[in-house]
């Protein structure tokens, strides 16, 4: 009998992930009570909460498992439990479909992992992390490459790296919002944990192209994720695509750390890893926050379609503040934490381009370009995600009648908003902590490495002149903002504000349908990226006379390139092969027996060959 070896690790990397898991799950758990109350039966709520707790514990087990056997088991438990949470809304056919796609993709990923783990086990003869690490040192480069690629495919599926992201924007929105926040905030991060644990710590970076491959995939994920997010009108799907993008940004940091450590630039490697991990914790927190906010909007309005919202800032003041904080952070607006981490990654690229000679110089410049473009598009995307639902006027009766959500939901989201601000102001402390984690991961002694001048000022280029201080920046912005407000107040005063109708050229019949739409907002980007989005557009006008149009309909949609061309081809091929295989099934028992006989004969004849 095989004994399951129970062993756990609590090294800096595990502890870092533990902190993230616990922070997000506490907030989500508080939030969930208000979210589930009154929408499901008591028994179902209890079931949901049990699954939720199980989910959290499985993730904790994933990041603390001390051997690959236990890791694989808890990894599978995590996937299964999250599958049940995706299909929690069992009456909804869409949930079941989303769950099936999720299940298939996650099992494909696990299959890759299993292969990688079996190769590791064969080399080491032990499940233990340390034993495997010791055994892999003498492994040939070719085998290491194979293991790395298998690991990348396996964890990449979970992380949602393009083109393996397909399940993410389908499954995440279908789960309950507090679960989405946990899935997007934490679960997909466990894949990054796996990549760091197995790819960097256990396997050890062996070739330069590992890091380069990760950076290239990360750039593609960033851009594809954000472009799709920009096109999306379903608020939760938008957030899910944005997760694909942010996973890309995280991997930019980790991939470049792998490049630097291979080239021997240890300080830069630590900085890159640190930036990646900083963005990881940031994304966990603000994406969790945004999903909770989206859930509040969904509960208040009953819809997830941005086109049917509007003016919610009046109805849901608390939610809109949280959502605004989250949107600002994810759009990398200074002085919030998203800005700090993306800025750090950009600095890493620039310092890398300066330090390295040859083709990699250009490589880092291009990566920096991709990140900058991503960052700009993200800002546009979240102008849409915040502006259309919360500003303007209600676009439907549902949005008109929205009510503020229960206090437990606001409390859960509020905790995460608070964490966002703390992480922004405490950037120096965070970086100091992360330098320790990065040093552990890359096996670098970090006692001499210090990326800060004092408690307030970050200085990523040691001895250089690049500095950033979020508290001072926040103070300046606060002072400038309130100064401008006071100035205007003194100049014009309250009495000068006049509320009236929008000027409509004398039409007098403006309704909420005349407002800017989400589809309209994203149109310039649809045109700019039409080579990738392949938009389809159909306009039909029914005219009464030459001058009077009676009705007008406009239809547009974009083509999901990967689903349409990559996955459909694979599925079509699989079904084609199955259909052809059906020719073997003739219905005659004798022929079936004959197949067995033939196989036996062939085995007997060719036994010497095996």
């Amino acid at each position, binding site marked *: 009998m095989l004994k399951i070896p129970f062993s756990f690790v609590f090294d800096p990397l595990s502890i870092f992930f533990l902190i993230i898991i616990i922070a997000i799950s506490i907030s989500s758990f508080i939030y969930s009570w208000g979210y589930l109350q009154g929408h499901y039966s008591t028994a179902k709520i209890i079931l949901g909460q049990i699954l939720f707790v199980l989910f959290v514990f499985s993730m904790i087990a994933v990041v603390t498992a001390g051997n690959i056997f236990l890791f694989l088991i808890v990894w599978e438990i995590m996937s299964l439990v999250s599958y049940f949470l995706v299909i929690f809304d069992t009456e909804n056919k869409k949930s079941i479909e989303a769950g099936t796609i999720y299940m298939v993709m996650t099992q494909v990923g696990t299959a890759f992992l299993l292969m990688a783990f079996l190769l590791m086990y064969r080399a080491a003869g032990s499940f233990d992390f340390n034993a495997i690490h010791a055994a892999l040192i003498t492994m040939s480069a070719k085998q290491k490459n194979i293991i790395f690629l298998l690991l990348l495919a396996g964890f990449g599926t979970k992380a949602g790296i393009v083109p393996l992201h397909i399940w993410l924007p389908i499954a995440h929105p279908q789960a309950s919002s507090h679960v989405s926040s946990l899935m997007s905030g934490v679960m997909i991060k466990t894949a990054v944990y796996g990549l760091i644990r197995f790819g960097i710590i256990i396997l050890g970076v062996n070739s330069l192209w590992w890091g380069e491959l990760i950076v290239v995939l990360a750039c593609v994920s960033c851009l594809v994720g954000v472009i799709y997010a920009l096109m999306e009108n379903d608020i939760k799907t938008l957030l899910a695509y944005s997760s694909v993008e942010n996973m890309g940004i995280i991997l930019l940091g980790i991939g470049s750390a792998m490049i630097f450590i291979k080239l021997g630039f240890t300080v830069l490697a630590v900085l890159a890893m640190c930036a990646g991990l900083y963005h990881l914790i940031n994304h966990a927190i603000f994406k969790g926050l945004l999903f909770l906010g989206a859930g509040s909007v969904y509960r208040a309005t009953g819809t997830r379609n941005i086109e049917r919202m509007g003016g919610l800032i009046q109805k849901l003041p608390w939610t809109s503040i949280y959502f605004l904080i989250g949107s600002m952070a994810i759009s990398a607006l200074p002085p919030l934490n998203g800005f700090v981490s993306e800025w750090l990654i950009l600095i890493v690229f620039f310092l890398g381009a300066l330090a390295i000679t040859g083709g990699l110089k250009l490589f880092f410049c291009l990566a920096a370009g991709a990140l900058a473009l991503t960052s700009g598009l993200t800002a546009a995307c979240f102008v849409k995600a915040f502006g259309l639902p919360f500003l303007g006027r209600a676009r439907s009766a549902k949005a008109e009648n929205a009510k503020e959500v229960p206090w437990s939901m606001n409390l859960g989201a509020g905790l995460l908003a608070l964490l966002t601000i703390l992480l922004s102001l405490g950037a120096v402390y965070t970086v100091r902590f992360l330098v320790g984690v990065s040093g552990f991961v890359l096996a670098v002694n970090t006692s001499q490495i210090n990326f800060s001048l004092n408690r307030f000022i970050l200085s990523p280029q040691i001895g250089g002149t690049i500095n950033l201080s979020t508290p001072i920046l926040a103070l300046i912005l606060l002072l400038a903002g309130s100064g401008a407000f006071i100035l205007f107040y003194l100049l014009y005063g309250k009495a000068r504000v006049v509320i009236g109708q929008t000027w409509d050229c004398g039409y007098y019949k403006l309704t909420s349908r005349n407002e800017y739409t989400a589809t309209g907002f994203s149109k310039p980007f649809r045109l700019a990226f039409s080579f990738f989005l392949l938009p389809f557009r159909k306009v039909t006008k029914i005219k009464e006379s030459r001058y009077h149009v009676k009705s007008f309909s406009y239809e547009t949609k974009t083509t999901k390139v990967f689903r349409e061309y990559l996955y459909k081809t694979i599925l079509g091929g699989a079904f084609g092969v199955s259909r052809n295989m*059906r020719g073997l*099934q*003739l*219905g*005659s*028992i*004798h022929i079936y*027996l*004959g197949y*067995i*006989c033939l196989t*036996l*004969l062939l085995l*007997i*004849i060719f*036994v*010497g060959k095996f």
Partner: protein
Amino acid sequence: MELFIILGLLATAFALVFAKRLSALVGSFSLQSFFLVLLSLREAVRGAHLDLYIIAGLVLALKVLIIPRILLNMIKEIKANENLGFFINPQLSLLVALGLIYLSWAFSSLVFAHQETLVKVYGAVSFTIISLGLFIMVFRIKALAQIVGLLAMENGIFLLASAVSGGMPFLVEMAIFFDVFVGVIILGVFVYRINKLFVGIDIDKLNRLRG
């Protein structure tokens, strides 16, 4: 004695392939099982194990007497045509069987390359019986041939286990006997049902289940 048993086992295997009537098939099977009893008895006498006596007794009771009796009764009851129904006629089957023997010998001498000749011979005989059992299942039409083929394969496996590896643990042996017995009963029930539904036990008529 050794030679006698080996020849007997081989001869009955050929008799199974050459049989043209259902009752001849069952009779050959019964005879083959009898040679297995002899083999077990010889092992028992040599090893002086009580277990082996019990096994020999069980083979005698089940495979030589009870199962053939059940099968013969079934043939009588459903008034099946005595003709077996061939996809390949007996003469040609015999040629194929010769080829299979050669293959089995080659396989056996490959697998038991470092063992004494007797083991190789026993290996070859048991592989022959297994493959001929399968051959009967594939190329005979009546459902009873499939049952007998399966039982013959089981005989081959029994032979392989007892002659080459000195027999399986007693408990496993008992479990297999039970399995075979239950299998025959279930298959018998199936044959009755097939006979009722299709007016005959030609299983080449069962061809409607397909994708």
